[in-house]
């Protein structure tokens, strides 16, 4: 005679502690992340469409979007271009101070953004160590759009390098040898065989660098000059609206911002998966 197992037995898990850890995880997640984040949606829902639109699409806001998006884009592209070179050199070559440089790549991760901000501003100011040369050439860096790009490049530097490095390390030497034995010269081998393999990682690094740059605040506000319509980034605009107690306006812009960032990351995830196939 067979007996049906009671539901209690069916749900039994072999290792203990699931309910405790899962419960704590969900509680903590809700308290710290989900509930606070939901405030954005809550607040935005108190706005009428007209109010929402005027906050989100005001000339000042639009200018800040252009700036944030544009500067992050350029910074991310710089990092892809040079970061891949750096990653290649760090993995494939030996040179003096290599280990020091390798460790230093993570500096933007570890350094507080305010410190980066004041350091960069001082360096690129008209009388700064680096800024003076640019100034002499008639290209001001600090307090301009260019300064923002410089800082965002710094911020996003490790994302590309650290994402691409392991891929270069795992490259199969046999594939390169095959290409070479089939008559490809070094440049062709790199372009046709290696680069396609690095593409997913480069894309991921680009997206991470871009996303990080979009939301960056602390390092940018020192070098930017922060003039509305000219050098005001979106996070600063949000901050200013908060200080003016325009919570609704701040939230509306924040919502748009979040949607764009999440959309970006999602898109990259999808692209990655497709490329991996």
């Amino acid at each position, binding site marked *: 005679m*067979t*007996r*049906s*197992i009671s539901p209690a*037995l*069916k749900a*039994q898990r*072999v290792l203990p502690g699931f309910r405790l850890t899962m419960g704590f995880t969900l509680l903590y997640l809700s308290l710290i992340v989900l509930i606070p984040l939901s405030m954005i949606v809550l607040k935005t829902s108190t706005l009428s469409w007209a109010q929402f639109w005027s906050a989100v699409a005001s000339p000042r806001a639009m200018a800040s979007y252009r700036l944030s998006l544009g500067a992050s884009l350029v910074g991310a592209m710089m990092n892809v271009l040079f970061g891949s070179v750096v990653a290649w050199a760090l993995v494939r070559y030996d040179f003096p101070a290599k280990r020091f440089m390798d460790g230093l790549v993570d500096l933007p991760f570890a350094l507080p953004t305010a410190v980066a901000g004041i350091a960069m501003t001082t360096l690129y100011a008209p009388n700064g160590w680096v800024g003076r040369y640019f100034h002499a050439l008639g290209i001001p860096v600090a307090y301009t759009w260019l300064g923002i790009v410089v800082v965002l490049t710094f911020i996003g530097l490790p994302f590309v390098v650290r994402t691409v490095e392991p891929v270069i390390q795992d490259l199969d030497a046999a594939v390169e040898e095959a290409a070479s034995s089939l008559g490809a010269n070094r440049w062709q081998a790199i372009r046709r065989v290696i680069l396609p393999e690095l593409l997913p990682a480069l894309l991921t690094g680009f997206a991470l660098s871009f996303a990080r740059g979009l939301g960056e605040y602390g390092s940018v506000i020192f070098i930017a000059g922060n003039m509305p319509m000219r050098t005001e980034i979106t996070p600063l605009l949000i901050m200013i609206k908060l200080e003016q107690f325009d919570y609704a306006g701040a939230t509306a812009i924040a919502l748009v911002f979040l949607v764009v960032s999440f959309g970006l990351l999602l898109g990259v995830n999808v692209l990655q998966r497709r490329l991996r196939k």
Partner: protein
Amino acid sequence: MSIELRAITKIFGDFTALHDVSVTVPTGELVALLGPSGSGKTTLLRIIAGLETPERGEVLFDGKEATHRTASDRRVGFVFQHYALFRHMSVFDNVAFGLRVKPRRERLPEPAIADKVHELLRLVQMERLSARYSSQLSGGQRQRVALARALAVQPKILLLDEPFGALDAQVRQELRRWLRRLHDEIGITSVFVTHDQDEALEVADQVVVMHEGRVEQIGTPEEVYEHPATPFVYHFLGNVNLFHGRVEGDKVNLGEFSMQLPTGAALDTPQAVGYARPHLLEIELQPTGAPQFKATVRHINAAGPMVKVELVTGSGSVMHAEIAQERYRQLQLRKGVPVFVSVKEMKVFNAPQNMLGGGI
């Protein structure tokens, strides 16, 4: 302690790993769960241990219901396929683990624990390596530590999941015999899972042959080898020669010759399949009047205690025969020599739907 599994059914998603499986393991016996991968044997072992829960059915230890007991309550010793040694602990600490996590009332003082551990390590011949870590041990050594660790808590049942699967042939042979001796010494009820039929036949008291989540046959090694209950068991254990034929009355017509049906053969279709082990084929140089078929010697492998002769029949099927060395010398067989073959004993089954291989 005896184990009884009643009507165990286990389903993973939409895959049924075990269909209504019932097995009894008497106290003190060493039982092998033998079958190809996917047969459900490891799942069944894990159900005994409490590492999986069945959808239906019961597990009883010594006649008492144990299906609801957790793995840590069941006091079974489990030896994992890849040993699962605690990688950050020394051999000594690994074996002592079970003794150290006992509740305070049951726990022995450290010196007593140390004595037990040393005793066990001596038993598995790993005493000198007690300070080593698992990464510093060979596969066979890790296996012995895993065994000592499982035995340390004095389990009533010992379960081993493909214990020798990851080792090379020589080590496998030695450890196989060593396990049998150990079992004889300790006398603990043991169940081990294997896909290696030599292992099961050599070591176990009883063999449970499994296939696709069902039990094909349970018996002693001789029983399952000499008297297989189903075609699958026949195929899985040892070499086999296949004969296709039709049932005619009390005989089976295999083309060139007919054989008396063995008594008790239950056949409900006219198409039949005959199975004969290589050592049951007898080779003659001349017809003897007994039911025989003609064949030509294709290949001879005379190395080893028995001589393996490969034969090709008139219809092109290949048969394998095993004869004694003296008989081989008597017949003076050579490649290409025509011979007459009779079958001493044949097991006849219904022809299954998908038959491969040849026959007469």
